[in-house]
C-alpha cells in the first residue's frame, strides 16, 4: 500500500471534468427556488436603482429651469427618488438574506456528505495518508467553495443578462461601432484560454502545498511530546520552513497569473475605447455618426466591459476554487471497500456461535495472512489467540468485525432465533453494535471521563457507567480525581497514565453490553494485581458471552476454554491450557520460556 507522507504531493488522478460542475449543481439545485427568487429580486433591485438616474435628468432638465415654481415638484421627485432607493434596499436585503442562507446551506450539505462518506471509508484510507490532509478537505476546502457556488452563480447569471441587454442596446444605437466594441472580445477570450491551464495548475499546486503544510502541522502537534523529548525542534522547524516556503512559492505563482486577467481586461477596455473614438470621429468627418451616438457608445463601452471584467473575475475565482472542488469530489469518490451489501439484512440478536469456514485473507495484493482458516466457536466459549507478533492474531479479529472483506471463504454468525447469517450479508451497524471490541490503542475523545465511557452505549445512565467502571477496577482511581467522572481528558493525555486510559477504554467496551467480546491486548499497560482484580470483576459479565482474547502474558489467558496458537497462516495448535502443555508443542515452549524468564 503506497502511503502518502506530509511532503509528498497528492497527484490528482482525474483531469478537469464537466461532471464536477454537474455534481456541484446537484447541491445548488436543491435551492433552485431560492436562487430564482434571489435572481428576480436582484433584477428588481437594479431596475429600481436604474430608475434614479432618470429622475436626476428629469429634475435637472425640466424642474430646475422652472425656477421658484419648481420647488414643490422638486420635493415630489425627491420623495419618489427616496421610494425607489428604499425599494432597491429592501430587494437587496431580502436577496442577501436568501443567498446567505443558501451559501451556508450548500457548505453544510457538502460537508455533511463528505463527512458521512469519510465515516464509511476503510481503515486503509486513514492509514495511508496524514490526518491533516483529510481534515483540510472537510474544513478549509469546503469553506473556500461556498461563495462561488452560491453568489458566484447568481452574479454569473446577472452579468450574462447584463452583457446581452447591453449588446442589444448597443446594436440598436449603431451596429458598426458596436462591432468595434466587440472586437476586443476575441482577444480577451484568447488571453483567458491561454492563461486557464496555467492558472488551474498553479492553484492545484497551491492547494497541494497547503495540504502538505497542514498535514505536517497536525502531525507535529500530535507528536509534539516525542519531538521535545528527542530535542528535535530545530529540525522540525526547518522542515516546516521548507513546507511554508513551498506554499509561498506556489501562491505567488498563482497570484502572478490570476492578476494578469484583470490587468489585461482593463487595458483592453481602454484600447477599445480609443478605437471607438478614433473610428467614430473619422466616420463623423464623413457625417456618418452623430456626436450623440459616439457619446452613447462611449458610455456603452464601460457598461459592456464592466460585466465582462466581472465575468472574468467570477471565472477566475471559479478556476481557483475548482481545484478545491476536485479534491472534495475526489474524496467523495473514494471507494468504500467495506460497505453494506445492496440486499444487506439487519442481523438479528446473535447467540455468540461463530464459524470461520475456509477463510482466505491478505491485507495487500499477493500477500496471504490467513489461508484455509477454519474455526468453530460455541456460544459462551472463551477463546484465546496467542502466537508470535505479527502472525495474524489481530487479523482474525479484524475479519470477525468485518473491518476488511474476506478474499475467500465465509464467516457465519448464529442467531438466537436459530437462523444463520453470513457476515458479509448483514448491515455493518447491526453487526458491530453486537460486538464489543477493545482495541490495542486506547484512544479517548476530548471530553469528560463520563462521556468517554458512555461512548460504548449512548443511552447508558450514570449508574450504569459507574457499574462498568467498577467492574474493570477503574472506579477507584476515577473517584479519587478532583473532578471525578467529570474530569476532562483529551486524546493526548491530560494527566492520566496509559494504564488508566486503558481502563477507561475497557469500561467503555464493557458498557456496550456485547454478545461477543473481543479484547486485543486489553490489559497490556495494567499492572498484574489490577489485572487480576479486573478479571474477577468481569467474570460475571463474561458469563454467557463469547470472547476472543489476545494477550502476550500467558498467565492471563490460561483459564480460557480454548487456546489457539496462530502461526503460518492458520491455527498451528488448539486446545485448553492443560491439553496444550501435555502436547509439548509450540505453546508449551512459549509458556515455559515465559515462566523461565521470570
Amino acid at each position: 500500500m503506497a502511503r502518502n507522507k506530509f511532503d509528498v504531493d497528492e497527484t490528482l488522478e482525474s483531469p478537469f471534468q464537466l461532471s464536477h460542475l454537474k455534481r456541484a449543481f446537484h447541491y445548488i439545485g436543491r435551492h433552485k427556488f431560492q436562487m430564482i427568487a434571489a435572481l428576480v429580486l436582484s433584477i428588481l433591485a437594479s431596475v429600481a436603482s436604474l430608475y434614479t438616474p432618470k429622475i436626476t435628468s428629469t429634475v435637472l432638465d425640466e424642474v430646475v429651469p422652472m425656477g421658484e415654481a419648481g420647488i414643490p415638484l422638486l420635493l415630489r421627485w425627491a420623495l419618489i427618488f427616496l421610494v425607489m432607493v428604499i425599494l432597491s434596499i429592501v430587494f437587496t436585503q431580502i436577496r442577501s438574506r436568501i443567498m446567505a442562507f443558501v451559501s451556508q446551506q450548500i457548505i453544510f450539505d457538502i460537508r455533511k456528505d463528505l463527512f458521512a462518506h469519510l465515516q464509511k471509508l476503510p481503515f486503509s484510507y486513514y492509514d495511508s495518508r496524514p490526518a491533516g490532509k483529510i481534515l483540510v478537505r472537510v474544513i478549509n476546502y469546503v469553506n473556500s467553495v461556498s461563495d462561488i457556488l452560491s453568489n458566484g452563480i447568481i452574479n454569473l447569471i446577472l452579468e450574462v443578462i447584463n452583457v446581452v441587454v447591453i449588446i442589444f442596446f448597443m446594436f440598436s444605437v449603431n451596429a458598426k461601432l458596436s462591432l468595434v466594441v466587440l472586437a476586443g472580445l476575441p482577444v480577451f477570450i484568447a488571453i483567458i484560454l491561454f492563461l486557464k491551464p496555467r492558472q488551474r495548475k498553479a492553484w492545484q499546486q497551491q492547494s497541494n502545498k497547503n495540504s502538505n503544510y497542514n498535514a505536517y502541522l497536525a502531525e507535529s502537534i500530535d507528536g509534539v511530546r516525542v519531538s521535545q523529548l528527542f530535542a528535535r525542534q530545530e529540525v522540525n522547524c526547518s522542515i516546516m520552513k521548507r513546507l511554508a516556503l513551498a506554499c509561498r512559492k506556489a501562491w505567488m505563482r498563482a497570484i502572478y497569473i490570476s492578476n494578469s486577467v484583470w490587468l489585461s481586461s482593463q487595458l483592453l477596455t481602454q484600447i477599445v475605447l480609443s478605437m471607438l473614438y478614433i473610428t467614430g470621429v473619422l466616420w463623423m468627418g464623413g457625417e456618418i455618426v452623430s456626436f450623440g451616438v459616439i457619446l452613447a457608445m462611449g458610455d456603452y463601452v464601460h457598461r459592456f466591459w464592466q460585466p465582462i471584467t466581472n465575468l472574468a473575475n467570477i471565472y477566475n475565482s471559479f478556476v481557483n476554487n475548482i481545484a478545491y472542488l476536485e479534491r472534495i469530489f475526489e474524496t467523495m469518490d473514494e471507494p468504500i471497500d467495506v460497505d453494506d451489501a445492496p440486499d444487506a439484512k439487519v442481523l438479528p440478536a446473535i447467540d455468540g456461535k461463530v464459524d470461520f469456514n475456509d477463510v482466505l485473507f491478505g491485507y495487500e495484493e499477493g500477500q496471504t495472512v490467513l489461508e484455509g482458516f477454519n474455526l468453530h466457536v460455541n456460544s459462551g466459549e472463551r477463546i484465546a489467540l496467542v502466537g508470535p507478533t505479527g502472525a495474524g492474531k489481530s487479523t482474525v479479529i479484524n475479519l470477525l468485525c468485518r473491518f476488511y472483506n474476506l478474499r475467500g471463504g465465509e464467516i457465519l454468525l448464529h442467531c438466537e432465533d436459530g437462523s444463520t447469517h453470513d457476515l458479509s450479508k448483514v448491515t455493518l451497524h447491526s453487526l458491530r453494535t453486537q460486538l464489543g471490541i477493545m482495541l490495542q490503542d486506547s484512544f479517548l475523545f476530548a471530553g469528560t471521563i463520563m462521556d468517554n465511557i458512555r461512548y460504548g452505549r449512548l443511552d447508558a445512565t450514570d449508574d450504569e457507567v459507574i457499574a462498568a467502571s467498577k467492574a474493570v477496577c477503574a472506579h477507584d482511581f476515577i473517584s479519587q480525581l478532583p473532578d471525578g467522572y467529570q474530569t476532562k481528558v483529551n486524546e493526548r493525555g491530560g494527566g492520566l497514565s496509559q494504564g488508566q486510559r486503558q481502563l477507561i477504554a475497557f469500561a467503555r467496551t464493557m458498557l456496550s453490553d456485547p454478545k461477543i467480546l473481543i479484547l486485543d491486548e486489553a490489559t497490556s499497560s495494567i499492572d498484574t494485581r489490577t489485572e487480576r482484580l479486573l478479571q474477577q470483576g468481569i467474570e460475571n459479565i463474561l458469563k454467557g458471552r463469547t470472547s476472543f482474547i489476545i494477550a502476550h502474558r500467558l498467565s492471563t489467558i490460561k483459564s480460557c476454554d480454548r487456546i489457539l496458537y496462530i502461526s503460518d497462516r492458520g491455527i498451528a495448535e488448539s486446545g485448553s491450557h492443560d491439553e496444550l502443555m501435555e502436547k509439548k508443542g509450540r505453546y508449551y515452549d512459549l509458556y515455559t520460556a515465559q515462566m523461565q524468564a521470570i
Partner: protein
Amino acid sequence: MQPVPWLWSCTSKKSKIRIIVALLISTITSIMLLVNPFLTSRLIDEVIIAKNPEPLLGILGIMLVVKVFRECTRYLMIILLEKASQENHLNLRIKLFECLQYQDTRFFDRNRTGDLMTRLSGDLDWCRHFVSYMGYAIVDCVMMFVTTLIFFFFTSWKLTLCLIVVTPLLLLITKIYSGKVRPLFMAMRERLSEMNAGAQENIAGNRVVKAFAREEYEEEQFDKRSGAFRDAHLNINKMWLSFYPFIEILAHAMSIISVFIGGYFIIKGDITPGQLTIFTSLTWALANPMRQLGNLINDFQRFQTSANKVMEIYFRKPAIMDRPGCKDHEDMEGLIEFRNVSAKFDRNEVLTDISFTVRPGQTLAIMGPTGCGKTSIINLLTRSYDPSSGDIYVDDCNIKDWKLQQLRRHMGIATQDVFLFSDTVEGNIAFGNQDMTFDQVKQYAKIAAADEFVTGLSEGYDTIIGERGTGLSGGQKQRIALARALAMEPRILIMDDTTSALDSETEHYIQEELKKLPFTCTKIIIGQRISAVKDADQILILENGKITERGTHAQLLENRGYYWQTYALQNDLPMDGGDD
C-alpha cells in the same frame, strides 16, 4: 498589544518598504481614477461637440498612458503587497510553529489539536489577508472619498457642507455596528474551532468509531457543529443586514442631496448647472467607499478576532524553559539523583517525597500499580513538568540549570504511548539523529528486534508508516520506538513499558542485546512484568505516588510485599504467607 501594531512589528524592514510603496501607489492611483472622466469630458467638449478631430489622438494618447500607467502600477502594488503579506505569513508560520514546538506539556494537555490547527491555518490566513488586501482597500476608500470631497469643496463649498453632514452619522453607525458584530465574529471563530477539533478527533479516532459502530452518532455530532457554524455565519449576516439599510440610505443620500439641494441652489442662483453636473457625475466616488465600509468592517473584525487567537500563542512563554545563566554541558555522565521530589497535576498530588540515586551505567527499574506515578517520574526527569517541591540532579547539577535541549539530547526515551510519524521506517528510527548512516539505523533496529520484520515489509526500511504507526501491530510499533530511542545513543535510556506488547522470546532477546550496547548508559525501565525488571541494579516499587519498597530482585522477594505478590501472580505460585 493591538493586532495592527503587532502585525506591523512582525513585518521585516524590506516588507515594510514594500507596504509603504504599495500604499503610496494606492494613494496616487485612486486619485488617478478621477483623471480619465475629466479627460473624457474634455474630449467631448473639444473634439466631439466642437467637431474638431485634431486634439483627438492627443487626448486619447494621454488617456491610454494614464490607464496603462495606473493599471500597471496597481498590478505592481498588488504584487508588492502579496510579496509582503506572503513573507509576513511565512515568518509568522515559522515563528508560531517554533512557539508551539517549545511549549510545555501542560499547554498541550489543555489545548485541542483542532484548535491549535485553526490558529495556525485559518486565523493566520486572516492576518495574511489583512496585509495583502485591507491596507490598500482602506487607502483606496479614504483617498477616493477625501479627494472627491476636496474637489467638490472647490466647486461649491456650500453644497459640499450639505454632503458632509452625512459623515458623522456614518461614523456613528460604523461604530455601533463594529461593537455589535464583534462578539458574533468571536462566536463564529469558536464554532469553527469546535468543528475543526471535532472532525480532527473523529479522523484520529476512526478505529474507535468503527469498533463501536458510532458512525451515525459521529455524523450527528458533526452536523450539529457544522450547523452551529452555519448559524453563527447567518447571525453575522443578519446583524449586517439590519445595518445595511442605514448605510445604503446614507450612500444614496449623497445623490439625493446633490440633486435636490443642488437643484434648490440653482433655483436660488447659488450655483450654476455646470457645477451641479460635476456633483451628480461624481457622487459614486463618495457613495462607493461608503458601501465598501461594511465589508471592510466585517473583514477587520474577523481579522481582529483571528489575530488575537494567534497572538495568544505568539506571546505565550512556556512555563518550562532555560533559566538565565544555565550552564553548558558538553556531555553527560548519567548520574541521576532525586531529592525529596513531589509533584502535582492540577490539584492532584501524583508523587510524594521521592528520593533515589542511580549511578552512571546502572539500571533502575520502577514498578507499581496503574496510575501510581511511574511515568510521572520520567516526565519530571525529562522536564516535561517541573516538580512542586524537591530537586532533581543529573551529574550533580540541578536539571533546572541544564539547557533543556542538551538535557534531552542525552536521553533516549521509548514512551509508552508510541507515536510514530508518517515517514519511512528509517526516518522514524533516525528521528533524533538525522545524520545517522543506514548501517547504524539497521544496527539499532537489530538491537530492538525490529530488523527482521522491517526487512519483511514491502519496501523494507523505505516503507512509509502511517501517522501514529497505523498499519503496524502494537509490538512492532514498540520495537521501532525502542530503536528510535537507542539511535540517540543516549547517556540515559528510558524504557517506559516498552516491551508490554512483545512476546516473551522477543523481550528476552532485547534484554540480552541491551546488555551489550555499543555505548554505556544509565537505564531506567518501567515495567509490569517481573521478567522486564528483575535484572535491574535497583528496583523501586511505587504505590500511590510513594516509594514503598526498594532493592534488588532477591531483596524484594525476601520482603514479601507488592513485588513478591506480583511475582507470585505472574508465576502462578500460591499466595500463602504474604504479609499483605
